[in-house]
């Protein structure tokens, strides 16, 4: 690692597994204690006010494939991996009545994908195509954007935009500080570190 100053406190940043929401959708939900797949992830539920996933809506598996009434709150998730969302046992997917389940259900209709991203200096960065999640804690680190042509990297590749822990959302547009621009990446590798640096700068200096 040339030229990088080692920052204590984030030693494992490079090891954190980052996943796009669209990669999590479709993963099986597997119980650790039984080794059974109890559902498939239909979609992730996320509230931009809170900066992390609230949970998942679910599909039934197999012949009866289709949406389930039950939802999986993030509290009941043991781990999100490349190949499965792990829960301790199958009963956690029976949650239909808890306040968290209600929140997951009511939030499920809103969608940040398709929203425009504006900086606080009035520049349009692009349109949200996906969200980037740190698998370990379900924290939302940023968005994948179809950027505006001026910003667009090589050959129309998507851009990865770090976001503050919380941000203002109107339903059609998202507002981010203009200082984010140097931290935009066109590759997910190194994106975790870019998010850390951006957030450290936000909380540290009063520019």
């Amino acid at each position: 690692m040339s030229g990088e100053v080692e920052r204590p406190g984030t030693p494992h940043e490079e090891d954190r597994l980052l996943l796009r929401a669209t990669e999590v959708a479709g993963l099986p939900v597997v119980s650790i204690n039984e080794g059974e797949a109890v559902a498939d992830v239909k979609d992730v539920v996320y509230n931009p006010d809170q900066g992390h996933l609230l949970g998942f809506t679910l599909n039934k598996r197999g012949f009866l494939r289709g949406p389930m009434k039950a939802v999986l709150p993030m509290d009941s998730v043991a781990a999100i991996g490349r190949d499965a969302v792990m829960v301790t046992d199958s009963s956690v997917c029976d949650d239909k009545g808890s306040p968290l389940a209600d929140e997951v259900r009511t939030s499920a209709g809103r969608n940040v994908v398709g929203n425009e991203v504006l900086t606080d200096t009035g520049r349009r960065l692009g349109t949200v195509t996906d969200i980037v999640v740190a698998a370990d804690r379900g924290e939302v680190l940023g968005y994948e954007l179809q950027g505006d042509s001026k910003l667009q990297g090589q050959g129309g590749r998507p851009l990865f935009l770090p976001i503050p822990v919380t941000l203002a959302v109107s339903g059609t547009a998202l507002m981010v500080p203009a200082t984010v621009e140097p931290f935009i990446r066109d590759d997910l590798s190194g994106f975790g570190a870019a998010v850390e640096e951006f957030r450290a700068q936000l909380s540290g200096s009063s520019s």
Partner: protein
Amino acid sequence: MMRLREAMGLSVVARDTAETLGQLHGAVVDVATRHIVALQVGKGHKARLADWSSVTGVGPDAAVVDSGASLRAGRGDREERMVKGDIALLGGRVLTDRGDVLGALDDVEFDEESGEIQALVCAGVSIGAARLRAVGGYAVVVAAEQSVSGGDGSASGELGPA
């Protein structure tokens, strides 16, 4: 120490009659005690189980059970699914409790006296039996080296005694 794959296909012979009862086609594992608790004789609808207590020995050439009368049908949903092959041990998907697939289960190392499981072998790596969490219809679940479900990672990556 014995490998389950070596034992697969062995003739299962009754000690009292010297009759061959069938071929060894699998093993029923109790995850809580990490033991093989029964051997599967035959497959499909003819499959029967021999409780480990009725097994007098598993050697290089045969598995011996005390009597043909000790063979029984699968009991309960889990055993029935194992006998039917819905829950696969060898060849089954090995998934960590962090949600990452390690590969297919290549082998199970066990003590041929006690039936105690010593290690799982997956993608050429030996996984200590202490990391086993579940054998289910979707996956064999093992604790990741940095596990979310506690347990000890001390046996991780360690090759079992020869």
